């Protein structure tokens, strides 16, 4: 059983799209889910319904800086993970782990006159962990390896946002343009996010000189309970530490966002598109805590004579150092901005069945943009089967082949998308994996005439 679970887990992982980056979905325009990439995409059916449990599930995992091979190649002969080896095998200057989960509880989309209206409810979780390689370096080699320089792990950042998303969409065609948008109401479930994180160690050339640790930043949390045993000297109660599950549905942490999209038919074969997705924020007010260290500069050049002679003075000195690193806790409301994305697409139809396309996309989070470039081919086979394949460059990963299809049988449309099928062949080297699958109930296929400009 355990083995089956393992296989299942690893079967799923390689067929995932990388977190938040979707390379295949833009080309699978026959599904309602393509409108999550560009709300201006007009669906192929007048009505699309997604039901709970069936509608859709997306899981994305992105790894940057390391993968399973990095870890495996860092094992000693006796299967102990050798941290110094691991540090040498890391690429870039940080390890980044992205995990995004998107569970579509339901959607309804229908056509009314020339307009297409839709409503959707999704539960989503976005996790982004960036760990400076120097954290591993410090564990691997110790602080002495930084003698005469500054160890800096300030690029470390962590974001975890869980929220419900209620979207209302509209789209229609205006001659060569399709215009669409989706207004979103976000209801925050819980969050933990670092801000302005600073962690530096000035290591002197010799251990006789002054060493200094500079630490600063804020960790904002909401609805996940108090993380520390005491808050500003007052012991935290168990109730304060516990997660309150009412946060899944209470309306305390509200936010708003918008998706906007546009497509333009350059001619009867070439269509250009652009969209911006998840441009919004959540204002966190429920059970909020801010753990802040105000750029503490902890310096030590060793104990002086008084501290050596007096245990009390030594303890006072050590306490004073630790107190500098003790976070102050406040309860100020705060706002997190969603990791928004943009897509620029170009599709060229050779005929009704064959289309090639190109996508430039990016995701913005915590001050940086992760770019991706995709070339795709899509073919419609028969009446209800759409198949697409693509090649993408994502960040500094150049080996990403995506596949996806949608298959309509009766009123049931099944779709399955996976962005990095090569991960099947080299599961230990994958960096981006994503899966999106589900079933839609679709009615009333719209057969649009081929436009001639």
């Amino acid at each position, binding site marked *: 059983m355990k083995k089956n679970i393992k*296989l299942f887990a690893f079967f799923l992982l390689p067929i995932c799209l990388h977190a938040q980056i979707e390379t295949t979905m833009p080309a699978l325009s026959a599904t309602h889910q393509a409108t999550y990439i560009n709300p201006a995409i007009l669906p192929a059916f007048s009505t699309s319904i997604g039901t709970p449990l069936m509608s859709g599930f997306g899981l994305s995992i992105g790894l940057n800086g390391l993968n399973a091979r990095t870890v495996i190649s860092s094992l000693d002969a006796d299967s102990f993970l050798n*941290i110094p080896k691991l540090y040498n095998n890391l690429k870039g200057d940080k390890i980044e782990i992205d995990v995004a989960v998107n569970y579509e509880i339901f959607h309804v989309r229908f056509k009314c006159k020339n307009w297409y209206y839709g409503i959707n409810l999704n539960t989503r979780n976005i996790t982004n962990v960036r760990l400076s390689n120097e954290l591993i370096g410090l564990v691997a080699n110790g602080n002495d390896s930084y003698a005469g320089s500054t160890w800096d792990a300030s690029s470390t950042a962590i974001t975890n946002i869980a929220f419900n998303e209620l979207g209302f969409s509209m789209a229609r065609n205006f001659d060569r343009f399709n215009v669409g948008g989706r207004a979103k109401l976000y209801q925050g479930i819980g969050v933990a996010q670092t801000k302005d994180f600073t962690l530096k160690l000035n290591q002197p050339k010799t*251990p006789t000189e002054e060493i200094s640790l500079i630490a600063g930043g804020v960790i904002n949390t909401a609805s996940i309970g108090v993380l520390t045993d005491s808050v500003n000297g007052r012991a935290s109660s168990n109730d304060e530490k516990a997660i309150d599950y009412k946060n899944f549905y209470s309306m305390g942490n509200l936010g708003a966002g918008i998706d906007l999209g546009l497509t333009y038919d350059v001619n009867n074969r070439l269509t250009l598109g652009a969209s911006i997705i998840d441009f919004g924020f959540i204002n966190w007010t429920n059970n909020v805590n801010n753990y802040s260290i105000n750029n503490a500069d902890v310096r030590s050049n060793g104990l002086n004579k008084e501290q050596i002679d007096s245990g009390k003075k030594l303890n006072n000195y050590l306490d004073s150092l630790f107190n500098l690193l003790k976070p102050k806790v406040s309860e100020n409301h705060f706002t997190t901005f969603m990791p928004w994305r943009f897509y620029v697409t170009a599709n060229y139809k050779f005929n009704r069945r064959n289309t090639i396309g190109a996508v430039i996309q990016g995701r913005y989070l915590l001050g940086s943009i992760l770019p991706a470039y995709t070339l795709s081919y899509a073919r419609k086979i028969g009446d209800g089967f759409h198949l697409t394949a693509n090649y993408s460059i994502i960040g500094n990963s150049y080996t990403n082949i995506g596949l996806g299809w949608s298959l309509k049988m009766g009123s049931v449309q099944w779709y399955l998308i996976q962005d990095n099928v090569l991960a*099947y062949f080299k599961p230990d080297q994958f960096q981006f994996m994503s899966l999106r699958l589900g079933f839609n109930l679709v009615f009333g296929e719209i057969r649009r005439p081929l436009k001639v400009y």
Partner: protein
Amino acid sequence: MKKLALGIFSAFALLSTSCIKEIEDTFNDLSSIKGITTNPTIAAPLINATATLRDLIDDFTGDLDISTDADGKIILKFKSVDSVPEKQHIILPGINFSFNIIMPPTEVPNFEAAGRYSQIIANDAAISISGNKRLERLVVNQGSLSLNVGSSFKHNTVVKISYPGITKNGKAYSDSFVFAYNGSTPPNIIRNVDLEGYEIDLTKNGSTYNVFTYELGVDITRNPSNNVGLTDKVSFTQDLIVNEYKRIEGYFGKFEIAEIKQTKELELFDKKLEGNVFVKNPTIKIKLTNSFGLPITAKITELYVVSGAGVQTPIVVNMFQDTFNLDYTTNIGQTKITEYIIDKTNSNIYDIINTAPQYIVYKVLFTANSDDLPKANVISDYTTVKQETYLELPVDVKILKYSLETEGDFELGKSLSDLDSNGVYVNWAETVSDIENELPLNAQIQIYIDDSVTNKVIDSVYNPAYIIPAAAVNSLGEITKPTRANISNMITRAQYEKLIKGNRYRLQIRLKTPETSPGVFPFFSFYDFQKIRVKLGVRTNITYRK
């Protein structure tokens, strides 16, 4: 189309299945991870301390008194204080007497005619005290005067008593006793007087000593219906007792005040292993503070030092070969101080100190009025002789292979062993030091780790011994500049494994004065502004595996 879709799905599934082995292998590799191992080198500053010689000596000795002279030169002081216990050195005899007063028969006719009879008796009572001692004046702290007066006359009688020598606030003590005859003899009247604060003068206004003066007056008023019997009388009894005096004056004869014996531990020297410290000008200062108002003669009956091996060496002081006298005051409340300085000009102290003794022992006998010739003495209830003895060692020294040692429990060994059992394997450790020394003193430091059960040395921490070089000096023995030294000491794994088995440490410091030329070791002065600055850091390489 359904067939096509099924075919594609099947192909996809087949593709997936063919990769299962790859996935399983990857998973197996990851799930086989037993733990982590790492090999960091941790470096941190441990000590950044500045100390003067005074600080260092404090660490070794605890409560040694260290001072400086006007130039800042350090002086070590071993202080010993003792005093003669306060007590009532003079025991006063009681002044007790009794007598009767009758009406002489020749006076009876006059009494019957005049109806009144009066008699006044002024008398002196001698104090019974031995030898040539003299009691003159005293102030009572605790004492009492008890009077018992009675009258058997069948007439009204008044008895008045007055003590010119017992005064309080300048007023002499007096009292009267009234006996009214109403057909039966009135009972005796008893008075008990608390004498605290009263002054008793036994000199009869300065004309003599050991004399107690009183006046008694009797006044009888006739009752015509009664006669005067031959046995009728006024009876009088006095008991005066002084238990404690506040002050007493007179001459109290020759007597031994007290004998003081003290043993003073000379810290700093008690941890000596070997070698000599030559102190250029050692001195012993004796300060005697005398609040006795009488001549005191002191006699040092014992004065010697004891070495670590228990050998007693006498300190020979020329001026103390016989008795010596203390200054004294004749005024109450004042003290007189007598000081003596013992140095190498009047004793063998130079040689004695350079043997680094561990104890100094002395015994002094104090005697009052040793010539036993009467002279003015005054003693109060707090009278004492306070003796303060200072062994002063100005740190003008030369040190030849002088070694100190102190020891304690080595608890770090067990802590490090526990660390080993928690997956931390210490590969090596290195101490790195940056030292600046302004002191004209070479120091060689070694820490030995012992097994206290077998009493055997397991290993030493420093290899070679840790050496702090002295400040640079010129041919005149003057310091020309501080010395800087960077010293590192490596502790290997093999050495580490030995050390953590120990449970006792012995810190051994070997000190040596720098040579100004080969074989020449001058005296160096140590000043409070001379410092030694030590920066000590540690670098440790560990393997963590768990």
